[in-house]
């Protein structure tokens, strides 16, 4: 239906002879993908705000309820879990920004022996799935005495190969002249980084930050393995108690809990949508 509307609109705007098939197809495709993406979310909202017997039945005037949210909230200490997740993603993002910025700056603008070998090693990190390293990481965290801390969840991800690569590519596109001008003004290497490179790479930081936060917000296996107590566990671990397949899944509660845990991310995305899309475009176009 929306596809029809879209093509009608296109047809009305231009004379019929110059009907823009390409554009109509694009619009139809975008709508189709958009609706496809949105369907599970609509289902989740429908199920979460209605009593259990309407989970698989559609009735326009079915009674509304918030009971599912209340049940989900009380089934696990979610307040604490939320705090932990926020601390976790903040710690990881801050660490990644500092480390990746410094490393990327070094790889982009300094020549030092072994730099290409080192950079190759960093790129190799992109090929290794973090899950393969779980045992090694566990042993390391144990050696550092960090098992069952939020720091232990985040530490393996702080030196991100992807972040270094992305920022290096961005820094490489910054015109040398800008750096030279700053140097003439008396800026040292750190001053140049802070005053020239970082401000120009803002869209990249924003785009990378979004990817990083959503990834670590959703991460499950590693946090489950390295933590043991309520004080350190993130929301995803709390969410997992609802997926008890032996007993059959209660869709009402699980959708309520899912909306609750993904809610902050969804709201943040809707609020900053324009900035995110623009930053992705700018980061990509450069």
């Amino acid at each position: 239906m929306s596809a029809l509307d879209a093509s009608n609109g296109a047809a009305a705007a231009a004379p019929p002879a110059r009907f823009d098939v390409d554009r109509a197809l694009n619009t139809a495709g975008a709508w189709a993908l958009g609706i496809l993406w949105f369907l599970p979310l609509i289902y989740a909202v429908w199920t979460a705000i209605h009593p259990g017997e309407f989970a698989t039945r559609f009735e326009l005037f079915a009674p509304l309820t918030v009971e599912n949210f209340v049940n989900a909230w009380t089934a696990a200490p979610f307040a604490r879990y939320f705090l932990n997740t926020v601390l976790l993603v903040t710690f990881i993002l801050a660490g990644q920004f500092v480390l990746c910025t410094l490393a990327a700056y070094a790889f982009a603008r300094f020549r030092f022996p072994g730099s290409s070998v080192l950079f190759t090693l960093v790129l190799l990190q992109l090929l290794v799935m973090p899950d393969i390293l779980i045992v090694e990481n566990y042993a390391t965290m144990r050696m550092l005495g960090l098992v069952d801390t939020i720091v232990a969840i985040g530490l393996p991800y702080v030196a991100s190969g992807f972040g270094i690569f992305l920022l290096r590519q961005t820094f490489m596109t910054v015109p040398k002249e800008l750096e030279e001008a700053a140097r003439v003004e008396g800026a040292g290497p750190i001053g140049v980084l802070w005053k020239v490179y970082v401000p120009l790479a803002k869209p990249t930081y924003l785009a990378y930050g979004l990817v990083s936060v959503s990834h670590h917000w959703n991460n499950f296996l590693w946090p489950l393995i390295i933590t043991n107590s309520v004080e350190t566990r993130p929301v995803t671990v709390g969410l997992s108690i609802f997926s008890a397949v032996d007993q059959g899944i209660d869709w009402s509660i699980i959708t309520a809990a899912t909306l609750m845990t993904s809610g902050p991310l969804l709201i943040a995305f809707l609020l900053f949508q324009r900035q995110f899309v623009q930053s992705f475009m700018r980061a990509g176009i450069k």
Partner: protein
Amino acid sequence: MTMLRKLGAAAGAAALSAALAAPASAVDLQFFFPVAVGGKAAQTIEELTADYVAQNPGVNIEAVYAGSYQDTITKTLTAARGGEPPQLAVILSVDMFTLIEEDAIMPFDDLIETDEERAWLDAFYPAFMENSQTGGKTYGIPFQRSTPVLYWNKEAFAEAGLDPETPPATWEEMVEFGKTLTKRDGDGNVTQWGVRIPSSGFPYWLFQGLTTQNDVIIASGDGDETYFDDPRVVEALQYLVDLSTVHEVMQPGIIEWGATPKAFFEGQTAMMWTTTGNLTNVRNNAPFDFGVAMLPANKRRGAPTGGGNFFIFKDSTDEQKEASLDFIKWISAPAQAARWSIATGYVAPRPDAWETPEMKAYVADFPPALVARDQLEFAVAELSTYQNQRITTIFNDALEAAITGQKEPAEALAEAQAQADRILRAYR
């Protein structure tokens, strides 16, 4: 920041416990447990642990929720390889061979000393011990154990003209009843299926019900041999496939586990096979009168057992091992086993637990709880071998290929047997 706070808390707790426990013998235990039946199970385990600690001031037990069964074995093995295993854990009984191969666990025989303790090992249902013993030694103590049963909708039976109090007792009856119960609307679309045997994820478990009823065992007790291509296994798989394709009493294709109770409540199926772990859920949510029965028989009655056992880990001090054994003895004692069974629907793993006053009151009020126990007499070990994850994956894939019609049952099972042989040869 948080780490500092945690460190501070840990130091405080250490100081406190040092002050409280006069003798320097306070034993710390870490205990990993999975949850497969909803939030209340976790709460009950934590309560039981707290009760034990309150009665035994010399022992501290940290009960750690470790996710699903799958997550728990991953977490435990990671911790063990990383050099910091828990002292005890509840893990799927079928992972026994994996844990032995990892050299992570120890037999209970090395810990027990008195005759009384030996009697304790013999107090459990033999059906549950099949998955807990190998090579003459006991590695696991049954705890959250289950078995599949048949649930039926009495109202649907009455509506179809069947006796609402009589579930199908044989394979033929299940097909016959199923045909009567399957309802179609004007366009020929099915509005109510006769039976539902879920097959997503781990189809082998319920399928093992069928093979056992067809009087065949699919793996040896030593865990180094499987018999997937036995003609009686092929026959059982053919029966399962025929339910959808020939008799048309079951929805075709892969059937979801998680959605099965809901489908039963909504009247999309008149019978379902699923675990006893669902009993409390069905009791609370079915909007109609329902019955619980043993699975139907063919050449004999039969069902697999399932669920988790207690394991004790090697890499601990002698005091910790002793304390672990004591805790397991306590939590598996009749009173605690009964409390756990009533709270979750799991089958209390020893006969004397069913003789406690609480349990008697419970079954008097809710007789279906007895069905699973009575079926234990006919139950066999759940499929368990060395390299268990790989072998069950091969078997599941073969079953799914046959259920979805990609392969003939005989062909799929012969291929699975050949693959399993290649893996298990090294262990013979």
